[in-house]
């Protein structure tokens, strides 16, 4: 449990960026920019990048 807590503490913003913001970016690419399915999956890459940026800048406001 302690190792899970440590993992969560260290990586929660990255996980949140990938899954939460990634899903939102994918939906935005699909519905707003009418991208195809393959291109829209880049939204998850954007989410991951946003999460990594948040981790290194300490941006917990993304959560």
């Amino acid at each position, binding site marked *: 449990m302690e190792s899970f807590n440590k993992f*969560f503490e260290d990586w*929660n913003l990255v*996980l*949140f960026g990938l*899954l*939460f*913001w990634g*899903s*939102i970016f*994918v*939906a*935005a690419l699909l*519905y707003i920019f009418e991208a195809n399915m393959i291109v829209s999956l880049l939204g998850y890459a954007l989410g991951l990048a946003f999460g990594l940026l948040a981790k290194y*800048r*300490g*941006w*917990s*406001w993304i*959560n």
Partner: protein
Amino acid sequence: MDQLGQHLSDLSIEAERKVAITFMGRIEWEMIVIGLGQFTLWIATWVLVIVGTIPLYVGFLLALFTACNAYLPSHAGQHSHLSGGKKNLQWLDYWIGQISLIQHTQPHEILKATHLKHHAHTNDPDNDPDFFHGNAKNWWEAAVSANVAYNNDGPAMKVISKHIEDDPKFKKALEKGGSWVFLFFFAQIILAILYPIETFLLWWVPKRFAASYLGIVFSYYPHSGLDKGRYKNTRFWTNRMPRFLNHSMQIHTMHHMYPRICHYDEAKAIEALKPFMIERGMPGAEYIPEKLRWNPVTYIKEVYFGGR
């Protein structure tokens, strides 16, 4: 009132407490209704948007409304107003407070612990977790600070870390709220995967908007630029809007003077305590109208502009 009138010539602290205590101890049922009501409306909004009964933009506006009404019931629970201070009803303080905070993705226990530190150290930059939006340079900075001051290395987080080190009870309260943090974290992710745009506009944006609203109306206007001390740390103010649209934070000074008085009793308590407030030199007390109940106090301009 006759009994209260007898104390008016005696403006001692003891006399002040005798008057104040007459306004304490009831169960604030209005906040229970608001807490459960706003949460029910928010859930209904989700359902109605997903089944297509209302458009997303209407849902977004409703979610903004519910988010802005989500904090005060928890705040009432933090001060035991929902239980009326009765031990066998303390579950009301916790559960109504927590249910109401779901939209804010905040644990009631954690907000209670940090809010009580705010009361103990209002306007102290080293110990007040709300200092940074409460004492921002302007309303916009307060709106931003309410969201970023709690970043991992943000100034509010540094204050909280200091209290964690110094106060074991505070640390324990934060740990108790931890399971809700996990729950909210995964709930947001699951909903974002299933309903991404809806989660963004019905949950994330409204909660961030509400945090800014709270930073401006609950912290910045009442506290900015004032001293420390329960009679000096909060002002009467106006932004020219009826106070009923600002959760009556224009008269928040009553809450910092006697936190055990329920929110919906503050106006009549101020009417009775006005002579004591003037005697103590509370910022803006001299401008308090005789009648505050149902008074929108849109006109105490001198205090807001003169007091800054």
